[in-house]
């Protein structure tokens, strides 16, 4: 159910005619585009810790944002009082970037139709609160029975449901309802003097049953224990340059950081990206084809429409090493004279949209993961990362591994701790020398930050080999 359509509109006597007048007030001769975004968001979170389901919370946030764009300038105002007169005030304020007070008549044409990639139901009401508590207890018992070295277990189950409405001065309008579920487990194991942490999680755009009625929560719990166990035996990492094999799935976060951000339209319009003005040029090894795809059913990074009402699409960013295109929102697409790609996203009604990734991944190649490991005499196999960051201007990126091993004589040997990878995005992509046929998307846990705005994203990649990258560690 769309709460904007079913509750906010009727309770505030808002109609399409009112929306047209609001958009007229924020439009005019010097305004290229104006839009209104309304959102009603409910978020809940349940946490089990010390064997007790002790924390529960629910947050409701609703409001609208109105934007008026004149060439490269944007006026933006938002509020949470849906009274018509208040929204009109916000519309006028947004347009204050241009001197002209003149308005422009707007006709909302038919409601946009688009393919729905997920159910519209709210995960929050899909289970009773009691069932959520019972589930967390079950997982907690499972983990504690499984391993006696467990010192601490923290399990979190959370979900959100967003009802959105977006209408713009081109006469386009649409509604979307977005469910999002997330499950997370963190365990701390102690053995002798050592303590190590392991965590795992998963989720997507669906209701709780898609996750809770499967074996996934138990598999993810096993995974958290396994990672902590591996790290209990980890040894210090030797610093220096080496060959690194990245595992499939979540290590695709490297692509997200090393390449993805640099291919966002705003940075390229402003030519502040390391990839600016390089369409058609070779920016990676020919083994690399990189895609951003917002259209995969039920994925955490997917959206039926972006936050400007553009249906998302499957966009090829790099094909066989050649740069093909950037990710765009409406404003940057217009200024760069290209088509919008359905990448206009915002954290909430209180934030401005900008080009953002959805699910970003590299296509599989022709090697196998075993062949890749066997080809390395001395190097590192990085299976999981805890986070990363990029400077899109210099291309410099950094990742911290949460699970990594040494490779010796073509075989995976001891786990290593505290490993950081550092490199330059374009540089590293050129050093990709083998790509396996095991492309995998992550489990649905990614959140991307840009200019203070967080949005859910997906990443993925096959196992791949990078020749010569700098690794940080405490041993020389």
């Amino acid at each position, binding site marked *: 159910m769309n709460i904007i359509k079913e509750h906010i509109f009727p309770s505030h006597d808002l109609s399409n005619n009112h929306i047209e007048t609001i958009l007229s007030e924020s439009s005019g001769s010097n305004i290229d585009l104006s839009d209104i975004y309304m959102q009603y968001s409910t978020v809940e979170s349940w946490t089990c*810790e*010390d064997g*007790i*389901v*002790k*924390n*529960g*919370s*629910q*947050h*409701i*946030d609703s409001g609208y944002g109105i934007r008026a764009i004149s060439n490269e*300038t*944007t*006026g*933006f*105002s*938002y509020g*949470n009082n849906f009274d018509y007169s208040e929204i009109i005030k916000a519309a006028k304020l*947004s347009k*204050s*970037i241009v001197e002209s007070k003149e308005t422009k008549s707007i006709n909302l044409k038919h409601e946009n139709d688009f393919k729905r990639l997920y159910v519209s139901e709210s995960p929050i009401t899909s289970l009773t*609160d*009691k069932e959520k*508590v019972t589930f967390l207890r079950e997982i907690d018992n499972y983990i504690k029975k499984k391993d006696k070295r467990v*010192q*601490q277990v923290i399990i979190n189950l959370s979900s959100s449901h967003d009802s959105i409405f977006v209408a713009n001065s081109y006469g386009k309008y649409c509604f979307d309802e977005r469910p999002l579920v997330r499950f997370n487990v963190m365990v*701390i194991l102690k053995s002798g003097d050592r*303590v*190590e*942490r392991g965590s795992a999680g998963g989720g997507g755009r669906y209701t709780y049953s898609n996750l809770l009625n499967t074996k996934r929560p138990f598999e993810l719990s096993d995974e958290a224990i396994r990672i902590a166990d591996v790290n209990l035996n980890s040894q210090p*990492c030797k*610093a*220096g*340059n080496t060959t690194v094999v990245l595992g499939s799935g979540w290590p695709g976060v490297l692509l997200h950081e090393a390449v993805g951000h640099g291919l966002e339209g705003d940075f390229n319009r*402003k030519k*502040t990206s390391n990839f600016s003005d390089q369409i058609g040029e070779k920016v990676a090894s020919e083994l690399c084809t990189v895609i951003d795809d917002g259209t995969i059913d039920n994925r955490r990074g997917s959206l039926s429409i972006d936050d400007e009402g553009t249906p998302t699409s499957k966009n090829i960013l790099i094909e066989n090493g050649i740069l093909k295109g950037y990710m765009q929102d409406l404003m940057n697409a217009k200024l760069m004279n290209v088509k919008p790609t359905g990448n206009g996203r915002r954290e909430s009604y209180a934030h*401005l949209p900008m080009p953002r990734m959805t699910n970003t991944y590299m296509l599989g190649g022709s090697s196998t993961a075993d062949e890749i490991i066997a080809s390395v005499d001395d190097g590192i196999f990085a299976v999981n990362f805890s*986070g*990363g*960051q990029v*400077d899109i*201007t*210099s291309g*410099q990126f*950094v*990742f*911290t591994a949460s699970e990594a091993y040494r490779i010796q004589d073509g075989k995976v040997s001891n786990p290593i*701790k*505290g490993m*950081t990878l*550092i490199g*330059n995005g374009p540089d590293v992509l050129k050093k990709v020398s083998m790509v396996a046929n095991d492309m995998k998307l992550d489990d649905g846990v990614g959140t991307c930050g840009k200019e203070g705005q967080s949005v859910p994203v997906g990443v993925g990649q096959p196992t791949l080999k990078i020749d010569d990258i*700098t*690794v*940080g*560690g*405490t*041993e*020389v």
Partner: protein
Amino acid sequence: MSNNFNEMSVKLKNIMDSLPKSKEYEFHLSSAYGTDVNSRFGALENIQYHNDESLTVTCIDDKKKGIASTNNLSDESIKSTIEKSETIASFLEPDKYQGLPKENLINDLDIDCDINFPKEFTTDELIDLTVECEKYALNYDSKIKNSEGCEYAYSQSNNLILNSHGAAGSYSSTSYTLSCVVIAEDNNLKERDYAYTTRRNFEKTENPKTIGELSAQKALSRLGAESISTRKCPVIFTPELSVGLFSSFLSAINGNNIYKKNSFLLDSIGNKIFPDHLSIIEDPTISEGLGTRPFDSEGIKTYEKSLVSDGILETYMLDTYSAKQLNLKSTANSGYSNINIQSSKKIDTDIISSLDDGILITEMMGSGANILTGDYSRGAFGYLIKNGKISNPVTNFTIASNMSEMFKNIEAIGSDVYENSKIKCGSLLISEMTIGGN
């Protein structure tokens, strides 16, 4: 404090008084309004008018804690938010450590703690400040060829806490931030850097010329950075990065990480974790302080205290819940205020001149500070130091150690205190870290 906020405070107080005494309740109301202006190449890029408010209700019923929040402050919505917190609590399981604070509670509304300096601006005035600042950056050197723009952000915030044991406190604050990001280009190399100033009082912000020129200098000095060989050597952290290291320290002594056993500083009270010359004090009362606050997030009166004295850890930072878990008392640290890092060791010259050979670290990337094990491994950018002087820029390397070691290896702290953070610290000289390079 705005009339609306005061009216809402009174209304919430009345609602609080009418709630059943068999349960515990806490209300937290916050509101903020302000304007952000961005300009780039002398033209306005964005104006954003902010206007946020939110009410968070906590209900503890029979040792079970439910939390609900809303940004709709209508009577109906407030009522349903309270009910939601009660419903959530009813489904949870009892936790003997739950409970709202009952002692040392604030009882003073509209407190003036010298951090509220409202100022009326026209939008044009804000735009002019950003244009001027960016102009100083762009005109600084012909190699400054691109800009991500300059931003001015102004905001006024109001904060109210009420609990059913009598806590009632509120205060207002302002903040003014000017920042500038430019890109230096030379020989197909691009480097970007920024400078900013953030203060409670508009009159104390650094001027547009200082910030503009500093952003340009920083971006320029990065050009031509080279890689570096793997080694162990002394490093100096800029004040800004030192603040980051101490923020990891504060997280490791946070009661919530201690009782969860998620810290490398478990059982460390009374232990020497820093060198003799280092002491750390929390002072919640500093005039115009970025962290100044009369009460903590639970409504407990804040007070000045020593966290580290002559290198010895004196206390964890505890809120009511973690204190009960650890059988201790709250230190009014649901959050923290201003933190002063002090050193009794006086150095004759500035900290860079004191070092013959090493690396000045000016930027770190990635999230490689592990609170559980203390392992520290991050990507870095910096400058070689030779014979006490800053020499060429270096990039594409990592620095690693363990925070326990790093803390003990702090040889000296500079007097160049970082003003843009509630953690006040100068440059740090750390006697040895591992550099991972080529």
